[in-house]
């Protein structure tokens, strides 16, 4: 087409037709949607990039515990003594240099459930809440049965599926590896409970074991000290209504004490310590060839190791 040719006269502008009107509406809607999508994308990227953790780190977290006189620790000593000593070393480091691990020797577990009950007593757990049940499998048909026991604390996963789902940033992975819950922030939606493949999270329904008896027993009304705070269950107050889980007795660790389940284990089947200390017992045990983790195919990278 010859560019110099006179262009044909422009057609007269049509009166505002429904199509023009539509286009205006669609353009405005498209602008709003594009803006909203951009804001949403930024929020999503920010949300995925931000590490939710409100814990202090560095020198401020170093704990200097008073020296405790103890029996000599040698290769014949009770492993509890060695682990207590290692614990004192670990808490003398800044929190981000510790990495708590638990090793459970299933060959030594007799299925006494003492750890479960010790944990209930330590944390004043109500009905419906349990941190460390002992999974009991029956092999064979009654009466020709054998039993297999697997204590199941929280795995304190390195890739926890429960923390990123929290809609209100109430749970996170601490620098020392423990997955913590802030009861004052948790709204009790239960999403984290569904996200855990180990069923390691439970919700406090506000019940008491002795509520239907003549007297509500005082031991149930005692406060617990989870996460180093004072929690008294009463009415609708936290931790009632919250997601609750095993935290390796963090409040005890900070005072140089082993988790209650470790201390109580009658067969010394549970070991605990700093996986980031090459000389520690758990570091040694977790590297054994017979070490396995539960549901490894879920990709959660647990910090609880089982010796089989």
């Amino acid at each position, binding site marked *: 087409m010859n560019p110099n040719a006179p262009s044909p006269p422009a057609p007269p502008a049509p009166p505002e037709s429904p199509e023009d009107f*539509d286009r205006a509406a669609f353009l405005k*809607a498209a602008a709003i949607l594009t803006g909203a999508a951009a804001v949403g994308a930024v929020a999503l990227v920010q949300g*995925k990039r931000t590490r939710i953790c409100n814990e202090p780190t560095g020198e401020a977290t170093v704990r200097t515990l008073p020296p405790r006189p103890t029996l000599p620790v040698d290769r014949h000593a009770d492993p509890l003594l060695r682990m207590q000593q290692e614990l004192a070393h670990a808490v003398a480091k800044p929190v981000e240099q510790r990495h708590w691990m638990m090793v459970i020797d299933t060959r030594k577990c007799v299925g006494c459930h003492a750890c479960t009950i010790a944990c209930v007593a330590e944390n004043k757990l109500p009905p419906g809440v349990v941190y460390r049940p002992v999974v009991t499998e029956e092999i064979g048909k009654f009466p020709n049965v054998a039993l297999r026991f697997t204590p199941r604390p929280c795995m304190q996963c390195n890739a926890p599926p429960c923390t990123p789902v929290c809609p209100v940033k109430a749970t996170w992975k601490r620098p020392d590896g423990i997955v913590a819950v802030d009861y004052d922030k948790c*709204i009790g939606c239960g999403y984290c409970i569904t996200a855990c493949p180990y*069923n390691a999270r439970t919700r406090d329904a506000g019940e008491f074991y002795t509520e239907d008896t003549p007297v509500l027993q005082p031991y149930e009304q005692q406060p617990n000290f989870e996460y180093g705070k004072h929690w008294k269950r009463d009415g609708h107050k936290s931790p009632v209504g*919250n997601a609750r889980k095993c935290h390796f007795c963090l409040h005890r660790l900070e005072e140089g004490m082993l988790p209650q389940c470790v201390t109580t284990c009658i067969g010394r089947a549970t070991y605990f310590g700093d996986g980031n200390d090459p000389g520690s017992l758990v570091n040694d045990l977790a590297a054994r060839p017979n070490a396995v983790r539960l549901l490894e195919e879920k990709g959660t990278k647990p910090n609880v190791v089982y010796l089989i």
Partner: protein
Amino acid sequence: MKKHWRILLWALWLVVAALGVHGFATRMIEGHRHAHYGSYIIWGLWVSAYIYFIGLSAGSFLLSSMIYVFGVRKLERIGRLALFTAIVTLFMALVSIWFDLGQMFRAYRMVTSPNFGSMMAWMVWLYTLYTVIMVVELWMAMRADLCRWQTEGGIKGLVGRRLAFHRGPLPPEKEKWCHHWLKVLAIVGVPLAIAFHGGVGALFSTLSARPFWHTPLMPILFLTGALVSGGGLMAFVVAAFHPERNGEEREIVSFIGRAVLGLLLFDVVLEWAEFSVPMWYGVGHEYDLLMRVLFGDFWWVFWLVHVGLGCVIPILLLTFRGECLWSVALAGLLIAVTFMTVRLNIVIPGLLDPHLQGLQNAFTDHRLVFWYVPSFFEWQVTMFVVALGSALFYLGYRFLPLTSKAATPPLLHEQSRYEPLP
């Protein structure tokens, strides 16, 4: 409506409301104690009710958007009714899920400290936006009529004067402005409703710990389910609540009926995929769970309520009696009501059965079991939500210009009405 029917419905409502208020009071005072969900089956009736109502909302909203966006002229008279239904069912959904929270009065934290990495935070933000859009849309659609009502006495006049934010009859250019923005918002609402209801599906399907939910089909299944159940509800609502039942009304209802039939058939195909793929070779965790859905203790929920009442009868009614107003309405009601069983059969089986076999024997406690049947208290709270929603719907139906004939929102292609006469 005949007088005895009216009395019967009021009596029914009063019974449901009385039981519901008792359930509500119990929930507020005693918390979760009387509920049967526990620590392992953490979500039960209320979460199912939540996704059920929210599906109805998204479905009726998408239907209303179809009217305003694509100018489906046939349906334009029911646009407001659809929008209002969407608002009421969304409200019912939010109340249901609010009761499920362990700490109800911390719900505001979703807004003040959201974690946008979490699907649940997204869902809350998206449905907040969705609520705002729906309320503004409804107001824009009703504004001209609200202005017209101002001269009337009684509650109508009061509603007109309070809500119109304009004195006297609405000038044509303002009405045109309202309809323009109504259309803009309706267009914005479509992807929003898809994102938000797909997001509810994603809330479940993103959890790798629950293989029953962890399927990419889940968000699509949620969307289709929303359209089917919301469309069914709309067919019923239009037939039952639209003041006129002339030829045009019948045409609208049978049009919705045909759309619902198509969607229902598509939903059946998706459901076939959802069941047949994990079950085909009869091995695995999902197979066991699906077998419990199909042939477990609650087999009748799937076969009788869902398949029989929710699929077969509506498909027959819509296929062979598609022109009959009340057949379509009945089919719609059956689909809408029985869809609750689909929601229950998504939520509960997903939580049955631990990965760690033997966990059920680890600790004897009534909340640490892998078995769940809703308690009467849970049904009572759901009754409260239903009574509240139906009351709200009735109030809107009585005191808002949702259906009156003069209230037909003039749509874009009708704008010639405003052009000066030659």
